[in-house]
């Protein structure tokens, strides 16, 4: 009898896992003992880190898109469809555009969605670089911006790429400085808790750089509303800031079907943070942003977790105990300007210690962004 593995979501986690299984389970796939299906709601994968550079006119959204059928091994059945229901008792998925399918093993890698509408006025009054349309609209504003107040507000956490808000203000400071406009531009960074980043080690590293570069900081700032006409953003804590250009990290959520399936709140699957197995159902894994592990919502996390889930699924298929576990490993480059970057590596046990910013690390980040497509193909 053929064992069916279904992966939902064709982002970094889903494509790395599909290719990992194609390699790891090649004999079983060839013999027809195993089927691996990757379901995605569109034909392309979107590599979101490209969007950080779009507002500065350095990258195009198309640089972050590739066809999934060119990324995923031919041994994987690629299904372009939208899952509408997950029934974990019957182990069945329903789809928008075709027949339902049963699974023996399900992996949810559905990622994050943006919910700016949760904050009144945010969608109308704010820009973002956390979506393709947001990044291109912000580019239109930013490229012609020469003076005034820019507010970068982190509205919700968890959000994708926790370093990206710091990167944006470091880059914008340097970008205006190099163009001789910095004295005419105020930059203010707001964060929901009492420091500038969720991780205290990264916050401790970043804060002096922000002070040195004249980036204003408002902590304990949880946006409550935006007035697009008055151009103000007001926090739950009672602080009101004026802006000429508001860039926000909008509230994030996972997809609705996860909560509907009883697997976790707000679209994040409650998992064992080491095995990545869902706590609310048998034979279900989650990885990447979708898995509520407490580690950053970052591509490197999805990449490493995919390797763990791949090993565990292969063990299951072969009737062996699954022993691979995820240790919280996270890697992240952090841009500190237009031509310098830092780097952090950490896990559940070992905190990050940001490397001194250098041009070499900046080029390493850009080089990795180019070679990412080898990761998606399972080669790097």
């Amino acid at each position: 009898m053929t064992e069916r593995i279904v992966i939902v979501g064709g982002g970094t986690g889903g494509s790395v896992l599909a290719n990992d299984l194609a390699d790891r389970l090649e004999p079983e796939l060839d013999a027809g003992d195993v089927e691996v299906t990757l379901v995605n709601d569109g034909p392309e994968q979107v590599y979101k880190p490209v969007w950080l550079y779009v507002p500065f006119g350095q990258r195009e959204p198309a640089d972050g898109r590739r066809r999934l059928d060119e990324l995923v091994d031919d041994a994987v059945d690629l299904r372009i469809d939208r899952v509408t229901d997950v029934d974990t008792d019957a182990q069945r998925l329903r789809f928008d555009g075709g027949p339902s399918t049963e699974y023996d093993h399900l992996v949810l890698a559905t990622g994050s969605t943006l919910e700016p509408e949760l904050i009144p006025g945010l969608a109308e009054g704010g820009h973002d670089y956390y979506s393709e349309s947001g990044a291109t609209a912000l580019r239109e504003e930013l490229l012609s911006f020469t003076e005034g107040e820019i507010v970068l507000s982190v509205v919700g956490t968890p959000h994708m790429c926790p370093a990206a808000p710091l990167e944006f203000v470091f880059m914008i400071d340097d970008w205006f400085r190099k163009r001789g406009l910095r004295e005419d531009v105020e930059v203010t960074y707001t964060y929901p808790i009492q420091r500038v980043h969720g991780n205290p080690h990264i916050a401790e590293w970043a804060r002096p750089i922000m002070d040195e570069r004249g980036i204003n900081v408002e902590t304990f700032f949880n946006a409550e509303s935006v007035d697009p006409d008055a151009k103000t953003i007001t926090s739950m804590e009672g602080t009101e800031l004026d802006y000429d250009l508001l860039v926000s990290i909008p509230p994030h959520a996972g997809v609705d079907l996860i909560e509907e399936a009883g697997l976790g709140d707000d679209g994040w699957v409650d998992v064992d943070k080491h095995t990545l197995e869902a706590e609310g159902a048998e034979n279900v894994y989650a990885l990447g942003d979708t898995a509520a592990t407490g580690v950053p919502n970052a591509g490197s996390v999805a990449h490493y977790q995919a390797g763990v889930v791949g090993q565990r699924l292969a063990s299951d298929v072969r009737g062996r105990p699954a022993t691979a576990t995820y240790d919280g490993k996270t890697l992240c480059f952090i841009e500190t300007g237009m031509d310098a970057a830092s780097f952090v590596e950490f896990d559940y046990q070992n905190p990050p210690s940001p490397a001194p910013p250098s041009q070499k690390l900046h080029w390493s980040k850009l080089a990795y962004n180019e070679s990412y497509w080898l990761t998606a193909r399972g080669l790097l």
Partner: protein
Amino acid sequence: MELKDNTNADRFQRSLMTEMDPDETVDSRGAACPGPLMDLIGAIRSADSGAVIRLLSDNEQSHTDVPEWAEESGNELLTVEEHDDHAAFYVEKA
């Protein structure tokens, strides 16, 4: 139980009230920092004025995060219950 001063009396009264009926409980046990505080802020965001939120957290940092944020935001930390493996923070939305 003898109440020796107003502070203790207040705490006792609040304890009785909150033990009876928080309007919402947010269970953040197991979440890494700043998860519990962000869960609390999310619950306060959608609560009505006067509602009492009970936050369950086993993260030591919550003992400083929650009082600091409550003070900053004008919401009131009514009491903190210490349990064997976690603490329960009762916060009333202003």
